[in-house]
């Protein structure tokens, strides 16, 4: 003892072995969520995500990753994901311009709908970021990229945009609260927000806090947990009032505040990729099985030539799910071996599945190695070989609709 992970105080860090990226050392320059004091009052443990200091879990509430994960699967949880980026692309033909840059086809959706899409590198087809595009109209699209990649996405779009289209970075202007779980609709109704709209659609509504404040809130039927859920986007100044209101009415529904630790175990169970692990500039949408988020027939999008060529030639590696056959836990960046002892790939994500109570992970595995669903492989977990079975995610059933 005591190495510990992302949430361990620095005073016991001498033997720490990081599993999840550069999260250990508190960065005093990190940005704080407008809800920072609320999390502090709930006894949150903290970590840095893309330059933002955010809650990992809430042991002070009797929570913790496992309890928070199960609350989202069985009842409802609220996450502060205000570290996610926000940007607006506006001006005449803003949507058409974006459609010539980002991978997915915005023409597949109409105003009031949101879409998962990718910003690829034009030369390599590697993924600069994965993001959600909220189509407000032909002349305005709101974007939610990942925290760490927001500046780069905005830079690339701004550099490509014609003079009459503005790309506006709004990272600190809004909070984003994700209310996720089978009882999320009841919580939204109780707090006075619309909850009946279809999956991946959004509506903008006026909301009044009990303190008398009024604001406009975007309510979107999105999330990254695999459960029925909503993401609420509100001006930062109103964030604390909205958070308080949801926690207040949520108590009856078994709502728990949930940290980014549970968000990671939830998304891993769904096989949803995390940029920086399962997606990167070195990993293409073809390799990550995200071809469904590419508008292949569009005349233009960044990476089109490279990605079509890769698709035609046959992709060299593919993202698979791995499920531990024993008790060990899969972690990112571990080599994967076949029966013959040959390296056939590398894990990109790995954790303990609170729903299945086994280790699960994602791995990029080489093609042409006869690997398919059910194949038995081994992962080298710090010198011990862990037997794993290849599977196609999700690891648990999706309930997003």
């Amino acid at each position, binding site marked *: *003892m*005591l*190495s*510990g*992970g*992302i*949430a*361990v*105080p620095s*005073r*016991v860090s001498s*033997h*720490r*072995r*990081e*599993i*999840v990226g550069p999260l250990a050392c508190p960065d005093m320059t990190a940005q704080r969520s407008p809800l920072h004091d609320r999390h502090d009052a709930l006894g949150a*443990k903290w970590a840095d995500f893309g330059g933002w200091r955010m809650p*990992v*879990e809430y*042991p002070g509430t009797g929570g*913790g*990753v*496992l*309890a928070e994960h199960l609350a989202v699967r069985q009842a409802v949880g609220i996450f502060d994901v205000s570290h996610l980026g926000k940007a607006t692309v506006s001006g005449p033909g803003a949507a058409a311009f974006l459609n010539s840059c980002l991978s997915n086809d915005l023409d597949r959706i109409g105003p009031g709908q949101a879409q998962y899409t990718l910003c690829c590198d034009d030369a390599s087809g590697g993924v600069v970021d994965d993001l959600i595009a909220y189509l407000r109209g032909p002349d305005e699209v709101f974007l939610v990229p990942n925290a760490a990649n927001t500046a780069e996405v905005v830079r690339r779009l701004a550099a490509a945009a014609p003079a009459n289209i503005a790309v506006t970075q709004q990272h600190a202007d809004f909070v984003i609260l994700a209310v996720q779980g089978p009882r999320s609709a009841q919580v939204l109704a109780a707090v006075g927000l619309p909850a009946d709209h279809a999956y991946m659609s959004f509506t903008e509504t006026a909301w009044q806090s009990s303190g008398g404040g009024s604001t406009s809130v975007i309510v979107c039927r999105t999330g990254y947990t695999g459960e029925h859920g909503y993401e609420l986007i509100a001006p930062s100044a109103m964030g604390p009032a909205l958070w308080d209101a949801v926690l207040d009415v949520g108590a009856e529904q078994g709502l728990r505040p949930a940290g980014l*630790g549970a968000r*990671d*175990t939830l998304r891993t169970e769904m096989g949803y990729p995390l940029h920086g692990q399962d997606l990167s500039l070195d990993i293409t949408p073809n390799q990550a099985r995200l071809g469904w988020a590419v508008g292949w027939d569009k005349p233009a999008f960044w990476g089109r030539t490279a990605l079509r060529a890769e698709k035609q030639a046959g992709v060299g590696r593919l993202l698979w799910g791995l499920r531990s056959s024993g*008790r*060990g*836990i899969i*972690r990112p960046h571990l080599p994967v071996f076949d029966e013959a002892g040959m390296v056939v790939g590398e894990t990109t994500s790995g*954790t*303990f599945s*609170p729903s299945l109570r086994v*280790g699960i992970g994602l791995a990029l595995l080489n093609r042409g190695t006869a690997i398919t669903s059910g194949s038995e492989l081994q992962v080298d977990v*710090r010198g*011990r070989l862990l037997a794993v079975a290849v599977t196609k995610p999700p690891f648990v059933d999706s309930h997003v609709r």
Partner: protein
Amino acid sequence: MAVPDDRKYSEQHEWVLVTGDEDPAVARVGITDFAQGALGDIVFVQLPAEGDEVSAGEPLGEVESTKSVSDIYAPCNGTVRAHNADLDETPELVNSDPYGDGWLVEIIVSGDVADQLGELLDADGYQDLLDRS
């Protein structure tokens, strides 16, 4: 949770309890309440097998939470007499009862116990360490 005064502590937030009057002495080892709280939900514990030799200061196993892996260090030289098999199915015992049912291993201490465990802190010393940090 108060620091139990029936045992010794390492600066790595492990506790060591010499059980009974056996000869050679047997030391039971676990992690402290502070340690389990800092790690969060324990989901897997990798422990040595009965008969394995361990050396003071060397890693003898690992404790894993959803996000982290932490080494467990041997507090003394010796031979593993037992590991806590209950942790195979319920590793969360380390969280719920770190000083009791969440123990990790028992080590048959090689050599003189006083020598081997003399460097460890008593409960007051460990509480001071927590207060200072």
